[in-house]
């Protein structure tokens, strides 16, 4: 084993992620190599220090009960007045039944903004739908229609696994000049088809529609009408 091979394995061993045979090979190398010995010792020291000193933030007293209050309105403390209970119950109902659409748009826009940060945009980089589509297999619970719209100026750049509302979402990334657009695809949970509708949030435009059991959200900062045309193309309307 060479140092170049050993270096990444040192960390895997430290984290208990290395198989037994490789552990033996690695230790054999490290025992003969002062540089790798130092590297391993240094990593070990950091990890020990982190485990010893790194803080586990403890919630304030009663916090867990406060958290649960919103999901068990009947057990609200008696100190509350009847009105407050009614209001809280109504709020809970509203929160549960609320326009999950808006929450979804909110999250899609946040996820889009996140993807614009460095190294967040793409897990798989390819303009070929035959590469992008299978990449999602087993990651989201549906087949992802990854199409390229390069001829219309929206080239498929690749895809990324994202999360919306705590569930896996396929994010397809398109380039349009210097703009990046995210097409989020999630399970529509049995909702019927719906044509593209537009929302604007924090400077981003979001077109959403439902088609064939999947919900789509196209997010970007390209001009609204242009994005709308693309959304209708994607939805198979135009």
């Amino acid at each position, binding site marked *: 084993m060479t140092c170049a091979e050993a*270096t990444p394995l040192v960390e895997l061993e430290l984290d208990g*992620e290395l198989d037994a045979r490789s552990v033996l090979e690695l230790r054999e190398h490290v025992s003969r190599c002062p540089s790798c010995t130092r590297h391993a010792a240094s990593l070990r020291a950091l990890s020990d220090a982190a485990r010893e*000193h790194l803080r586990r933030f403890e919630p304030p007293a009663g916090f867990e009960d406060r958290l649960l209050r919103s999901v068990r309105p009947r057990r609200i403390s008696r100190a509350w007045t009847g009105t407050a209970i009614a209001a809280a119950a109504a709020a809970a109902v509203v929160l549960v039944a609320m326009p999950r659409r808006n929450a979804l748009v909110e999250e899609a826009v946040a996820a889009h903004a996140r993807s614009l940060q460095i190294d967040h945009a793409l897990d798989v980089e390819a303009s070929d739908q035959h590469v992008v589509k299978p990449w999602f297999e087993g990651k989201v619970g549906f087949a992802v229609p990854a199409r390229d719209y390069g001829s219309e100026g929206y080239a498929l750049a690749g895809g990324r696994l994202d999360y919306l509302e*705590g*569930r896996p979402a396929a994010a397809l990334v398109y380039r349009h000049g210097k703009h990046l657009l995210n097409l989020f695809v999630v399970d529509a949970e049995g909702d019927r088809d719906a044509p593209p509708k537009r929302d604007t949030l924090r400077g981003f435009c979001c077109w959403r529609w439902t088609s064939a059991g999947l919900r789509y959200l196209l997010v970007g900062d390209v001009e609204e009408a242009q994005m709308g045309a693309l959304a209708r193309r994607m939805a198979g309307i135009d």
Partner: protein
Amino acid sequence: MTDAAKPGEFERTMRPHFRAAYNLARWLVREPADAEDVLQEAVMRAFRHFQTFRGERARSWLLTIVRNSCWSFIARRGEAEEVFDEERDSPGLVPLQLVPEPEAQLLRTDQAKRIQEEVAALRPEFREAFVLREVEGMSYKEIADVTGAPIGTVMSRLSRARRELQARLGGEARKAGGS
């Protein structure tokens, strides 16, 4: 299964993991009041989706929702506020703020505080991976599940986090390692 809320079942399964959720939220969004708001939102969301919980690892399931709420919050705040640790998050390493004390002494007396600060100063995605690994003791697979990143990405984030921490915390001996 009825989707009608099952608060009892929800509480029994998820409550044991609220402390881990709180810890993660504090590490990610930092401000106690913000962390509480984010958690409140996350727990509502978890409750709403509880029927999709299939009895797999409850901690990972809950933490996935919590971290996504945290990231949404960070993204929102990132736009509302001027900087979210823009300086500290830049790729270059911030030079060590040396106090007039021999470094060995400094390391011993101040190690707890220093490591706390330096981990807090990591870019959020590195910080997240490092905290889930070293504080929660999660495996790569669990971290990948929670963060929605491929395992290779988890490994490289952890590795980057460690290299930055070594460079910031350690003296000469630690720097020697990575290269």
